[in-house]
């Protein structure tokens, strides 16, 4: 049995259904990210786990225990909010101590635990500061310590980094991940930033309009996107519209060029339109590859170590990167070139 189980979770606000048939099982100690564009329902799922919203259908269980009858303050969950939400009337020490005081922890134990938490986020020297006397990054670290101090069974983070500037965002996300590993706490991290999700997660749930489109490890999500949405949202995949020629032979037509795929075309019929995806680093002009597509060069830019070329294959724009070499001639716009790649790199994408 997984630690956190979301079973067929639904949420409607009035007539609008914002979370649909959401299923997910998270293991103890796992770091899972919910990734998706703004408005796709990430926060709503998180708020249902926290008990701020009541599901319209489905169940949430933590450690085998159904949560539907528990109020927020009975769930023993830690949460970090996008806007920090530190208590402005309390200094750092009192903020971190809040959950312990509410739980009636003895004074000495509170003191020790708060010290331990402040050491974890390396802010022992700021114990007397008030929230308004600190930078955003410091405030968010205090918020993390505050959430972790009462030893919650689950940690929820709702876009905790999106209010911070780029440099702090990267260092803090590494810090969050390192603290999470150290404590072994099961964590759900919500973000709309694909790089953020790819870099720190054990697994990622890509959400689209209230549904989980794909659940997988970062490399599965990036290398084998299951749907067109995942492919376009994660990374910079090229999309090609194609038509099935012969499902048994794995042949498809892009414009008037027929190529053979490695992937099987189960359940497809001849003449059916499909979408293919190609990662930008998979194609090249000179390299080896068992498959070739002709295209017209749209543009070519020199980026130092790589050259990024954009060509049009039967009306589909395709970008690809090739490593720079001194003897390389850059393709000129208007020129017709052969794009080579391995047929295994061409993915069939669901809609």
């Amino acid at each position, binding site marked *: 049995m997984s630690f956190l189980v979301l079973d067929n979770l639904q949420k409607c606000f009035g007539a609008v259904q914002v979370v649909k048939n959401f299923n997910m099982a998270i293991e103890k100690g796992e770091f899972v990210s919910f990734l998706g564009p703004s408005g796709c329902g990430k926060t709503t799922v998180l708020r249902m786990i926290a008990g701020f919203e009541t599901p319209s259908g489905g169940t949430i269980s933590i450690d085998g225990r159904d949560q539907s009858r528990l109020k*927020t303050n009975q769930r023993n969950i830690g949460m970090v*909010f996008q806007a920090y939400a530190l208590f*402005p*009337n309390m200094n750092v020490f009192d903020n971190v101590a*809040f*959950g312990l005081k*509410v739980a009636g922890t003895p004074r000495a134990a509170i003191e020790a635990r708060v010290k331990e938490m402040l050491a974890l986020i390396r802010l022992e020297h700021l114990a007397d500061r008030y929230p308004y006397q600190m930078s955003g990054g410091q405030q968010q670290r205090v918020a993390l310590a505050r959430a972790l101090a009462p030893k919650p069974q689950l940690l929820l983070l709702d876009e905790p980094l999106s209010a911070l500037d780029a440099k702090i965002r990267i260092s803090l996300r590494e810090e969050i991940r390192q603290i999470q590993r150290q404590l072994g706490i099961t964590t759900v991290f919500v973000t709309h930033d694909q790089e953020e999700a790819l870099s720190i997660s054990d697994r990622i749930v890509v959400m689209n309009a209230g549904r989980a489109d794909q659940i997988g490890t970062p490399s599965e999500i990036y290398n084998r996107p299951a749907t067109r949405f995942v492919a376009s949202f994660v990374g910079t995949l090229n999309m090609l519209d194609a038509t099935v020629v012969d499902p048994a032979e794995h042949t498809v037509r892009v414009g008037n060029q027929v190529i053979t795929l490695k992937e099987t075309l189960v359940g497809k019929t001849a003449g059916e339109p499909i979408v293919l995806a190609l990662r930008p680093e998979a194609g090249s002009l000179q390299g080896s590859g068992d498959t070739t597509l002709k295209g017209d060069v749209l543009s070519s830019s020199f980026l130092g170590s790589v050259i990024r070329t954009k060509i049009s294959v039967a009306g589909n724009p395709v970008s690809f990167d090739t490593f720079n070499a001194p003897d390389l001639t850059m393709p000129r716009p208007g020129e017709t070139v052969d794009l080579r790649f391995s047929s295994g790199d061409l993915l069939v994408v669901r809609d």
Partner: protein
Amino acid sequence: MSVWTRIVGWAVLIFGLLYFFLPLSGLFEFSLKARRGVYSFDAYREVFADPQFQATFTYSVVMALVTIVIGILIVVPTAFWVRLKMPWARPYVEFLTLLPLVIPAIVVVFGYIRLYNTASWLPLTGSIFGTNTLLAFGYTILALPYMYRAVDTGLRTIDVATLTEAAQILGAGWFTILRRVILPNVVPAVLSGAFLTFAIVIGEFTLAALLDRPAFGPYLQRIGANKAYEPFALSVIAFTITWACLALIQFVSRFSKAAPARH
């Protein structure tokens, strides 16, 4: 800033100060004239020596403090709940809290006497404690418009919903949230509501007179009708003490840890 705007600014300020202080200084000057031909504090001596003065003033101060406490206990949770759970109800609640400005105190007090007289189901006017309670609640009603507005404005300066959720997920219940998170953050607002409540209660006449309680307002009126110089001395004293109280509250709030300066 041009010279002209500066001059106009100063002129307005000086006019305002004169407008405010000239009558006060006239009042003060007259209160010193109890003895013919020379300035003296005779009138003040008379006032301070009057046991009635001490009794009524103390009574009103205590009533003001009780009113402030009742006001806080009613207004802070209400304003909090309306903001958090029933934002659609805000205009109605606001309208309701403004009614005391429209309904004269005399109407309120006659309503009270009809509802809570000795023959009613809740004979509050039958005992001194009951009448005092009634008076305190009456004062609370009079102060409601100011208290509610002040607290509601104070709540606007914090993110009530998120702070409430942050406290809930840390295990806090409603009482803890109100006492430890919401109230401390609206202390400056509550205090400004408290100042006004204090000022209203100290001078209030109608409720106290009709409920026949020994408050400062009716005493002031009685002296004013019967003496020449003492009422003026009394006014100056009342002013001074009220201001001193307000300054004290300010001072306490400035140095209390509960209300750190905000950026």
